[in-house]
C-alpha cells in the first residue's frame, strides 16, 4: 500500500480524500495556489506544497508543478479528485511515465471515454444504447479565434432536430454547454461553449447531440479492478439541475423498477468492460419519458455526488479507489452490494438563487454546520475563509441518509434549516422550498425541474402568500399545478391530512406554531434585539456581558 498520496485538487473533495488517507494510515500532501494559502484542504493535510498563482492553468491545472510537488514530497500516488486534471489523460500518462500511480483509470481509457465521439463508438459497438447526435466534433481551438464551418454544421444538426445540446468534449460540471433552439444561434453557441471549455478544461472541442426537454438523468456507480472484476453500486438520480449542473441528487431513483434498474446496471457494467475501465467511475444515462435509456458518458473520476452511494451501500469509494490503484483485486462482488434506505445530497454553492444562481464569492463571516444522526456535510470552508472567485463556487455537500425517501427529505429540510452560512449567498432557503414542493415530494423530477417550477424564485417573502394559497388549493383533488408547501403552514395545521408525511414532519418542528407572517415578526424581534443588544455590548465590556447574561437566568421556559 502507498505510504503517501498527493491530492491534486482543492476544497471539499481534497478534504474528502484526506479523510480516507488518514483512516488508512496514508500520509497526505495538499497542493495550493496563492488564494488558497489558508484553504481548508491545506489546513487538513499532513503536508502542503505551493504550486502557483490563483489562475487554475498556472496551479491546479499545472501538470509540471504538480508532478514536481509529488517528487519533492516523495508521494507515490496522486489522487486527482474531480474537475481540474481528473479527466486529463495526458496527466494520467505523465504520472505513469514519472513512476507515480494515478488513482483512476488508465490514460488510454480516459482518452477514449473523455472523447465523446470515441466513447460513443465504443458503446455502439458493445450494444449500449446511445443518444442521437453528431458523430464528429467541431469548435474553435485557440482562445478567441472562432473557426466553425457553419454550413456543414447547420445541415447536420437539422437532421438530429432542434433543440440540440452543444457540449464540450472534455466537459463536465456544467461548463461549456449550450442549448440551441434554432439554426441562427448555432454558430454563436458553439463559439461561446468552446471558449468556456477551453478555459475550464484546456480543450475547446465541442460536439452536438439531441436535447430532450423532459428527461431524467440517472447514473450508475462503477468499481472495476485491474483484473477484470467490474461491479456497479446502483444508481443516482441527478435530474435536479441548474445551468446543466446537478444541485440535488438522490438514491435510489423513484422511477426505476427493479427490472429497469437491473437492465441499466448491467448496461453500465457492459459499458465499463467495453472500455477496459478500472477504478471508480460513473456511467451516465438519460432516461426519456418512455423509460428508454441512452448512454451519455462515463465520468472517469470520483463524482461530486459519490457520498449518497457511500451512504446507502456502506462502501467507502475512495478507499476502494486507492486499493485498486495499489493493485489489489476488488473484494466486493455484485451480490455483496445491498443498498439500504434513501440518501439525498444538496450542493451548497456560493451563489444567489434570486439572481439566476450567479456566483457570490466573499468572506464567510459566520457559519454553523448541521449535525445529527444520518447527516454528513462534506465541507470545504470555515468561518473567516474568503471564498475565492477563481474556482468552482462549491462550499459543501450536505448529505443525509434515512430509512425512506420521506424521512430523508424531512431530515434534509431539518439539516438545511440548521445550516447557517453568513457572508455569501447560498441556495439553502431555495433548497428547502424545492424539497417541500409537491413535484419533488411526489418524485416528479426531470432535468427541467428548476426551470419549470422555480424560475424567478424569490426568498420566502414573495413565496409566503402564494405558498399558502397553493398549499390550500392542494387540498382540492385534481389540481395539477405545482404547489409549494409552506412548511410553517403545514406544521401548524396538524388536523390536515393532505400530506402523507405530515405527521412525521410535525414531530420535529418546534417552530411550527409560527405562520410565515409570524416568522417575519420574529425576524423583526431579532433585528430589534440585535440593535438593542449590540448597543449594550458597546457600552459594557465583554466580560461584563458574559457575567450578567446567562440563558438559565434569562429564559424561564427551558425544558430539557
Amino acid at each position, binding site marked *: 500500500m502507498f505510504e503517501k498520496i498527493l491530492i491534486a485538487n482543492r476544497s471539499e473533495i481534497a478534504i474528502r480524500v484526506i479523510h480516507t488517507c488518514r483512516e488508512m494510515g496514508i500520509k497526505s500532501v495538499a497542493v495550493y495556489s496563492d488564494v488558497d494559502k489558508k484553504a481548508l484542504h491545506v489546513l487538513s493535510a499532513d503536508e502542503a506544497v505551493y504550486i502557483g498563482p490563483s489562475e487554475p492553468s498556472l496551479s491546479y491545472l499545472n501538470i509540471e508543478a504538480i508532478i514536481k510537488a509529488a517528487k519533492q514530497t516523495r508521494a507515490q500516488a496522486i489522487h486527482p479528485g474531480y474537475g481540474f486534471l481528473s479527466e486529463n489523460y495526458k496527466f494520467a500518462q505523465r504520472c505513469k511515465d514519472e513512476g507515480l500511480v494515478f488513482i483512476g483509470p488508465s490514460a488510454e481509457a480516459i482518452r477514449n471515454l473523455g472523447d465523446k465521439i470515441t466513447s460513443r463508438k465504443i458503446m455502439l459497438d458493445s450494444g449500449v444504447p446511445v443518444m442521437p447526435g453528431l458523430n464528429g466534433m467541431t469548435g474553435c481551438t485557440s482562445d*478567441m479565434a472562432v473557426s466553425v464551418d457553419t454550413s456543414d454544421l447547420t445541415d447536420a444538426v437539422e437532421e438530429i432536430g432542434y433543440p440540440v445540446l452543444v457540449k464540450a468534449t472534455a466537459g463536465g*460540471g456544467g*461548463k461549456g454547454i449550450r442549448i440551441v433552439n434554432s439554426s441562427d444561434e448555432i454558430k454563436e453557441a458553439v463559439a*461561446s461553449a468552446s*471558449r*468556456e471549455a477551453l*478555459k*475550464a478544461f484546456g480543450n475547446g472541442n465541442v460536439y452536438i447531440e439531441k436535447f430532450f426537454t423532459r428527461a431524467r438523468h440517472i447514473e450508475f456507480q462503477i468499481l472495476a479492478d485491474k483484473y477484470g472484476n467490474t461491479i456497479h453500486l446502483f444508481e443516482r438520480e441527478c435530474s435536479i439541475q441548474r445551468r446543466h449542473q446537478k444541485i440535488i441528487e438522490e438514491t435510489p431513483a423513484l422511477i426505476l423498477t427493479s427490472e429497469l434498474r437491473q437492465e441499466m446496471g448491467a448496461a453500465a457494467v457492459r459499458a465499463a468492460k467495453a472500455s477496459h475501465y478500472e477504478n471508480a467511475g460513473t456511467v451516465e444515462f438519460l432516461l426519456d419519458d418512455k423509460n428508454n435509456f441512452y448512454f451519455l458518458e462515463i465520468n472517469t473520476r470520483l463524482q461530486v455526488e459519490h457520498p449518497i452511494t457511500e451512504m446507502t451501500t456502506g462502501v467507502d469509494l475512495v478507499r476502494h479507489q486507492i486499493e485498486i490503484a495499489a493493485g489489489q483485486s476488488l473484494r466486493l462482488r455484485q451480490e455483496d452490494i445491498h443498498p439500504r434506505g434513501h440518501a439525498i445530497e444538496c450542493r451548497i454553492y456560493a451563489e444567489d438563487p434570486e*439572481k439566476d444562481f*450567479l*456566483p*457570490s*464569492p*466573499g468572506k464567510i*463571516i*459566520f457559519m*454553523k454546520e448541521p449535525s445529527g444522526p444520518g447527516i454528513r456535510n462534506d465541507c470545504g470552508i470555515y468561518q473567516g475563509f474568503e471564498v475565492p*472567485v*477563481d*474556482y*468552482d*463556487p462549491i462550499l459543501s455537500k450536505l448529505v443525509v441518509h434515512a430509512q425512506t425517501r420521506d424521512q430523508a427529505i424531512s431530515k434534509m429540510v431539518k439539516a*438545511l*434549516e*440548521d445550516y*447557517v452560512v*453568513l*457572508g455569501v449567498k447560498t441556495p*439553502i*432557503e431555495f433548497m*428547502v422550498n424545492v424539497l417541500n414542493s409537491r413535484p419533488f415530494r411526489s418524485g416528479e423530477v426531470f432535468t427541467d425541474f428548476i426551470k419549470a417550477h422555480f424560475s424567478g424564485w424569490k*426568498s*420566502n*417573502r414573495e413565496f409566503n402568500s402564494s405558498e399558502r394559497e397553493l398549499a390550500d388549493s392542494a387540498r382540492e383533488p385534481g389540481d395539477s399545478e405545482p404547489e409549494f408547501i409552506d412548511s410553517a403552514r403545514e406544521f401548524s395545521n396538524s388536523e390536515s391530512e393532505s400530506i402523507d408525511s405530515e405527521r412525521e414532519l410535525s414531530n420535529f418542528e*418546534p*417552530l411550527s406554531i409560527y405562520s410565515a407572517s*409570524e*416568522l*417575519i*415578526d*420574529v*425576524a*423583526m*424581534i*431579532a*433585528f*430589534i*434585539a*440585535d*440593535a*438593542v*443588544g449590540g448597543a*449594550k*455590548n458597546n457600552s459594557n465590556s465583554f466580560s461584563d456581558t458574559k457575567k450578567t*447574561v*446567562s*440563558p438559565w437566568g*434569562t*429564559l424561564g*421556559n427551558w425544558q430539557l
Partner: protein
Amino acid sequence: MEYNLIVNQEKKSADATISDHHLKVKTGDNIYDASFVIISEHHILLNVDGRNVNAFIFSDQGGKTVIIKGRSYFIQDSDLLEQNLSEKKGFMKQSIIVSSPMPAVVISVLIKIGDRVEKGQPLIIVSAMKMETTLFAPFEGIVSGINTKEGDKVMPADILVDIEKEEEPQ
C-alpha cells in the same frame, strides 16, 4: 419605541418596549413577549412567548440579514435609510452603468473607444467561478471610455465602460 422597518422590501412597523433583555413587541396584528440572549456577535437566542428561536444576523449593504430556520430576511431601519438616500441614488445609477454583477475577471472587451453601440449590444465578457457573463449596453450611444482590459479583476461597483448618450431624436 417605534421602529419603522423594511422587511424584504415591504414596510412594517413594530412598537417595542425594551427593558434589559426583555422586549414587548407589538406588530400589525400581534403582541409578543420576548427575551433574548446574545450568544455571539452573529447569533441571538430569542425566547418568544416561551418558544426558543435561534436567529443569525449580520450587517449587509445598508441593512441586516436575519436568518431563522434557513429562511433569510433582509431588514432595514427606514429611519436610518434617510441618511443613505445618496447611496440610493447611486443605486439608481446602477441600472444604467456597465458593471459586473459579481467580483469577476474580464476575459474579453468587445468594443473600442468611439464605437457606436446599440442598446443590448454585448460590450464585455467577464468570468467568475468559471462562469461567463456578458455585459450589455444599457442604452444606445458612443463609447467614450473603457476603464478595464482583459485579465483585470473587477468588482460590482466598478464602472467598466462609459457610454455617451445620444440626443433623443424629436
